């Protein structure tokens, strides 16, 4: 299948507020129909990025190009962009009934008044609210989940090609949030609409997105599919922001110092680690690697499988998490690592390890990620 031209494209876009750069030379392209997330901690520039796309902010004078459907829209006003948006606060007009809220955009787009009630009734997302209960009510008479659906319906009724969502699930409780995540994902697939989703919740981004742009300090730190982001984090920030990561450091050894395309990382205490060789590695330079807790295993000293990296340590806290058990191990070198083990049922098949046990933390050399220098 040939690659479709991007529906949204940022080319080196920058936006400053006074001296502060909120968005710094950000580039990415979104494919039509994609569920694309901007993920990052608060203050990373993700919301400003979304607002630049909506047209509430204008890029700096030499601040690159925002393109929609191939056209530069830097100076276009929000109402000239035909974009839908769901706001964090929902931004439902408190002085209008639910019905009039949903009809607002239709009225502004000069839809004949006779057609409006029908289209409001068929608005996607409203389906699950019985008309009699919502139509005449004011937004403050609705529950959080209902408001959220109305906000969604108000945006979708205009059938935009792009829908922007600014942390729309932030105010909902966990159960409702999970439900809405699924519903949004379904809507995205059924309507074939491009969703651009801002969130600081990494689990949410992983669960819903086709691709994620992880943002940090006004820049895109990494862009990729959820699996790429989680399994191949490129920087220490990405490794730690998405999921959990144990970090190890050392000095790169000579290429070919290990068998089969592996390269040793020399540690201060002489216990070298093997990692997959990486074009960015040069002998004698500092290297950081990330290993996810579930890539690690625990063995008794002397039982380490051949060819695996292994570091000695002492078992500390054991944390019961349901699906998994997290074992905190203090390494001989002083650092603490988290090891995730599958919970085989503590009642029938209790964990072998208890606090104070001497263990080896072991992992296969290919189960680690060499990080780019910060």
């Amino acid at each position, binding site marked *: 299948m040939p690659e479709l031209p991007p529906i949204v494209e940022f080319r080196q876009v920058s936006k400053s507020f006074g001296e502060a750069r909120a968005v710094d030379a950000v580039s990415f392209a979104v494919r039509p129909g994609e569920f694309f997330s901007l993920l990052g901690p608060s203050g990373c520039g993700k919301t400003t990025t979304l607002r630049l796309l*909506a*047209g*509430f902010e204008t890029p700096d004078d030499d601040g690159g190009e925002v393109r929609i459907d191939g056209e530069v829209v830097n100076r276009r*006003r929000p*109402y000239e962009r035909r974009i839908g*948006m769901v706001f964090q606060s929902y*931004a439902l*007009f408190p*002085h209008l009934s639910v019905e009039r809220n949903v009809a*607002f955009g239709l009225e502004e787009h000069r839809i004949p008044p006779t057609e409006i009630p029908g289209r409001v009734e068929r608005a996607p997302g409203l389906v699950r609210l019985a008309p009699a209960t919502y139509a005449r009510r004011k937004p403050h008479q609705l529950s959080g989940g209902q408001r959220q659906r109305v906000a969604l319906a108000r945006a979708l009724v205009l059938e935009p090609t792009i829908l922007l969502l600014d942390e729309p699930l932030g105010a909902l409780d966990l159960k409702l949030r999970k439900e809405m995540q699924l519903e949004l994902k379904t809507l995205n697939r059924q309507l074939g609409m491009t969703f651009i989703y801002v969130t600081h919740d990494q689990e949410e981004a992983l669960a819903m997105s086709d691709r994620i742009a992880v943002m940090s300090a006004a820049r895109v730190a990494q862009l990729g599919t959820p699996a790429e982001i989680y399994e191949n984090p490129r920087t220490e920030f990405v490794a730690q922001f998405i999921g959990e990561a144990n970090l190890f450091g050392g000095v790169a050894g000579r290429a070919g110092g290990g068998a089969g395309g592996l390269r040793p990382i020399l540690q201060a205490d002489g216990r070298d680690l093997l990692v997959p060789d990486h074009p960015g590695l040069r002998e004698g330079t500092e290297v950081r690697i990330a290993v996810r807790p579930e890539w690690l295993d625990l063995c008794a000293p002397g039982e380490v499988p051949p060819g695996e990296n292994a570091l000695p340590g002492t078992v500390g806290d054991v944390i019961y998490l349901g699906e998994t058990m997290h074992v905190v191990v203090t390494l001989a070198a002083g650092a603490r690592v988290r090891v995730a083990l599958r919970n085989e049922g503590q009642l029938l098949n209790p964990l072998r390890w208890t606090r104070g046990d001497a263990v080896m933390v072991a992992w296969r050399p290919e189960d680690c990620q060499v990080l780019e220098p910060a």
Partner: protein
Amino acid sequence: MTRRLPGWLVALVTGVFVLLHLPVLVLVAYSFNASRYSADWSGFTLHWYARLLERPDILRALRLSLTVATVATVLATVLGTLVALGLARSGFRGKRMVEGGLYLPIVTPEIVTGISLLILFVAVRVPLGVGTVIVAHTAFCLPFVAVVVLARLRGMDRSLEEAALILGADEATAFRRVTLPLLAPGIMAGALLAFTLSLDDFVITFFVAGPGGTTLPVLVYSMVRRGIEPTINAVSAVLVLLTSLTVALAARVGGERGA
């Protein structure tokens, strides 16, 4: 709210509330007192109110007060609301100074405001009268309106306007369909404040009124200076009734709007 308040505290506070309202209540009560000179109660009468109707100067002053208050309120509300809207916009140079400066007319002693306006009008040879009173009232009501409307604007979610824009309304339509309706209670409150401030003002009016600008408070003042007489009680009661009616009416309108 499980903690009980000590009895002495409740007694003290009750006393303060009595002090706060007793003088005006006494005044209104005495406007119905038949006795001319003493404070002794010598029977109920409407005589003093009847006397008001025989005084063309009082009726003229009342009409002037209402005219001035209406015109000044309209001007101050429009200008003050625009100032608030300007100040609520995203940062621009001098914004903090303008905002701080708005409080200056509010805190300036009325005597200073009145005198300085008098000096200006005399210096540029503007004859004192209804015109100068309206101009002065608009000037001192305007910052109050701006501050009240600004507070309402600050409490408003800016994303509501943005939602209107993204739904296809341009800035002017978004203002008409979203900002203005949500701002209306604030504008009403500001206008109401302006109207009562104007209706009640004595000090500034006293200096810029001239012979043709005798509003009701200015007239009451000159009556008080000439000597205490029960007619003043009746005029005062009318003035109290007037502002109370304004407030009640506004509360009514505001209540219906909110429902």
